[in-house]
């Protein structure tokens, strides 16, 4: 005896889709609703064909966070034959005129899908504040701001989506990230070491039948209460349990071993390779935000050896992922960003290390219709300063969001108060938004 409520009607869903398509325009209304309103991605009222079409055009973001601070000189902005350049050579890429470090040979072949921002100055050289800047688009000051994943999950998760909207595949690096004022609903669900979410397995003492019986009795109790009083909050609470059941039923989504053996081999058997394949699996299921952490790049000692090792792990799975997303067409709707909390000093210290450096460094990004094969901004000859088109985390945040159709200059309204989605003093990198 389930209640049949008018607000599960199709209008909500379509309005929401409409909003996403025309994003940048009149998005405020849709976003401003604090509780839950909108609707379904894979809801039952959709025919399978329509649902498939909708889930295909669902926008997504994948961020790969290279923890500790990857060196821009050993990756996206090599400075060969200078006092700061280090021992590695640059190599050509699939985009004529763009060269990157020889430590990224596979990535180089995918460069025509990607772009580089080489002129980042975040004016910070501490890990904590750097991670906050790059993942929230704001400086760490005053009340905390939500993580990029929380913003994306809030704006892009279809209403009756069974999987979490914000997933962190954690191999070291930061733990669960905060949704701040957006509320814990949009905080990350963590796949610790690439394993399924905590408590997503039914305890052995509880049979499926028993679980289904208690869920049925819960629904019955909720229906009886809803006859007396029903709010957006009671709906959200009811749904969270149904969502948990749905997630448990498709726990395989988190099992990378279910991917074809051939793919597992292509991505590699090490942790980061598996995590990239898992990320692909989740993006294919329509998860709006996935972050993969790769640790650790904090190379105060032996910077070059460590980068050979770390990037050796990073390069092939990352390039494979980009190539796969491009082939399947998903890259069209998926923004991919490779970021760190900052870069590393051009100056090589006495222990062959590079230290923290937020003054002139790079980010690599692509997909979701962004201009591909572009280079934004420029550093000077030995990489010690930005000389053209200075960019910071605020601009990047706007760019990411607008790439996936979120009107970043608007505000969220939470509990009656307005919160700008991204720093109102900044705007996106327009030339990247094709």
């Amino acid at each position, binding site marked *: 005896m389930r209640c049949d409520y008018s607000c599960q009607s199709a209008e909500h869903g379509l309005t929401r889709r409409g909003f996403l398509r025309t994003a940048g325009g009149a998005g405020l209304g849709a976003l401003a609703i604090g509780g839950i309103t909108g609707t379904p991605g894979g809801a039952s009222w959709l025919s399978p064909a329509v649902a498939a079409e909708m889930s295909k055009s669902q926008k997504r973001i994948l961020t790969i966070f290279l923890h500790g601070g990857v060196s821009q000189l050993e990756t996206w902005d090599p400075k060969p034959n200078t006092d700061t350049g280090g021992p590695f050579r640059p190599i050509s890429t699939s985009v004529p005129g763009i060269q990157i470090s020889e430590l990224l040979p596979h990535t180089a072949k995918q460069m025509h899908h990607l772009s580089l921002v080489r002129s980042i100055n975040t004016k910070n050289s501490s890990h904590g504040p750097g991670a906050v800047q790059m993942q929230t688009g704001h400086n760490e000051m*005053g009340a905390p701001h939500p993580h990029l994943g929380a913003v994306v999950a809030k704006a892009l998760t279809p209403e009756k989506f069974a999987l979490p909207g914000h997933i962190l595949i954690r191999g070291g690096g930061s733990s669960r990230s905060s949704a701040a004022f957006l509320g814990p609903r949009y905080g990350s669900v963590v796949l610790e070491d690439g394993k399924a979410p905590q408590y997503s397995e039914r305890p052995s003492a509880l049979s499926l039948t028993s679980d289904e019986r208690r869920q049925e009795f819960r629904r019955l109790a909720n229906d009886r209460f809803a006859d007396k009083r029903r709010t957006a909050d009671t709906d959200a609470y009811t749904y969270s349990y149904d969502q948990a059941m749905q997630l448990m039923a498709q726990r395989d989504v988190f099992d990378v071993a279910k991917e074809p053996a051939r793919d597992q081999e292509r991505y590699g058997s090490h942790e980061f390779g598996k995590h990239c394949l898992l990320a692909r699996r989740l993006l294919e299921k329509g998860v709006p935000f996935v972050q993969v952490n790769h640790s650790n790049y904090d190379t105060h000692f032996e910077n070059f050896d460590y980068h050979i090792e770390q990037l050796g792990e990073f390069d092939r799975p990352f390039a494979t992922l980009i190539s796969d997303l491009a082939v399947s067409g998903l890259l069209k709707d998926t923004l991919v960003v490779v970021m760190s909390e900052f870069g590393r000093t051009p100056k090589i210290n006495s222990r062959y290390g590079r230290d923290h450096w937020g003054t002139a460094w790079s980010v690599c990004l692509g997909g979701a219709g962004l201009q591909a094969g572009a280079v934004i901004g420029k550093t000077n000859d030995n990489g010690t300063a930005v000389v053209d088109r200075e960019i910071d985390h605020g601009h990047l945040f706007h760019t990411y969001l607008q790439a996936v159709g979120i009107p970043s200059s608007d505000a969220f309204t939470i509990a009656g108060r307005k919160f700008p989605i991204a720093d109102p003093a900044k705007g996106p990198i327009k030339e990247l938004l094709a």
Partner: protein
Amino acid sequence: MPHAVFCFRAALCARAVRWSGAVASFVLLAGPALHAANNLPSPKPAAKAEKIVAAKASLASEIDRLIAAERLAPLGALADDGEFLRRVMLDLHGIIPSVEEAREFLADKSPDKRERLVDELLAGPRFARHMATVLDVMWAERRGDKVVKAAEGYEWLYESLAKGRPYNEIVRDILTADDQKPELRPASKFFHDRDCEPNQITRDVSRMFFGMDMQCNQCHDHPTVDDYAIGDYYGLYALVSRTYLHTDKKTKAKVIAEKGEGEASFKSVFTGEAADRVVPRLPRGAALKEPEVKKGDEYLVKPDKGEKPVPKHSRRALLATAATDGTNPIFARNAVNRLWAHVFGRGLVHPVDFMHPENPPGYPAVLDRLTAEFQSGGYDIRPIIRTLVLTRTYQTTYLLPDATALRRGEAAKRLKTWEAEQVRLETSLKEAEAAAAKAEGVKREEVLAQARALRTLLRARERRIDEARQVAAFEKIASTDKAGAARAWELLVTRWTEQGDVPLLKPLGPEAFASSMLQATGFVTISESKALATLKKSPPKELVKLSEAERPRMESMWVDRQTFDPLKSNYARFVELYGEATGGDFSATLNQALFFGNGGVVDGWLSPKYENLAARLVAEKDAARLADEMYLAVFTRSPTDEERADVAGFLQGREKEKLDAVKEMLWALLSSNEFRFNH
């Protein structure tokens, strides 16, 4: 502390008798009868107490009258006893009633039982326990351990409230921020948590103690609130900007210190408005008087050679005094508004940290009246909360009123009066603003304050006028356009819900959620029985040596600690998963649901142990009686006939796996909306 019979021993004895099982039908609130039975002296003459009760009750009805003059939403029916008991226990103790408490209260036939219940709840240590959580979450915002541990800060609040310390004294200790005196150290958590960083302190002091979130004013006038100016921010900033974290030479410990010099200055990034030596003052307050300090003569202990300085004049002490000495009306108003929000789920001014004329209270006269009462009552929070929960408004059922309950014609009638009042207010406001433009100095501040008050009243009036028009429009189509009327009514109900003019569903905080599950499943009673048995058999030495006057209170606190300390370890997971974002919306998450279903913690409460609920239910042969016991324990009410049938149906044919069936039903009821929300 002029209210009601404070009788800890009554509660304690009542509990002791009840939970030892000797007198099952014992009435919890026996009061004087109990004293007579035990030959204990009654602490206050009954006549005096009654008079006080009457006085306070009349304040509650005065509040109801003030509300009725403004509210257009129909008043719902009176909440029944079970509904009231559960609601008021959750609001005052952060825990649902036990089955014993519920039975006793429901069986009590006396007409004043609600008032006596409220007095009992306010007097007990569980009130201090719950309010300490509420205030701690409000001020520390779940920051956890820093220099001062979270538990230290909490314990200090719990003790302070259990002693009945007034609100302004508690805040004075916080703003004094003396981490060297052992008795004040826990209160210094507020400053330590924020690293004594003056901007963080300024923002949170203005937000939490004055209800004005002026974060934007750090760099410029507020973009959306005309009333918050950059100068307001820096007046407060000047009071804390000399405070900093000093590293002790020897121990390297961080201690709170203050300089005797240094002036605040600002320059707006928008307008270029600037000031060099900002005179310290409270938000909306006049310049604070400071002693003359000669240059070079600022210190008792100079900050030389890494010494911790001691200034002759402490601006932080000036802040602590000026804010809490009872003269600042905004300080009192903010507290009352937050107490209202705690009880009703939404502030009279909402959001609670955006008090300004363009965001008026829903019932301006109510806020004024309660603020005056709070100030004259010495900043004691108990009489205020007592008044609030004894209002008829609070005691309204959570069922939404339907359109037939609307008093037809009332909106149109009021509209006339209100529109005339609007014109008068507009004229007065214009006059006040014109006068302010001409006035100077203190006089100008006075006129500005008047203008601000008038603007607040005007905006509140405009909102009600708008609402009255909406109601009148509904009435116009009510009989002619059925579909249109239904839609219009729905919009009205939404409006009233957003305004807090109908009762709101309030999600339980994580501690209340966990405690209430432990109560429903019977573990709180088990733990308390153990504590009471210990107290009887081998009372701890520290209690035995207390005086007769002091002992009851300390005993009840001891029992409270013994009861909850073993259960508290369960809270951490709930706080982590269910801890609300500050000031944010309710959030239901996948992580929560997975934990609740598979985490093992809740499941552990559903297995039979001692005389807990599961054990009682498994032992119950009769399905109807089982349903009665289960619904009373979990929902504080009897099941309906339908629900009795649900339970009987669920148990049908499962005699051999009855434990499983009981656990399934219990889990379902605990995971339901009716349990999750205070209603």
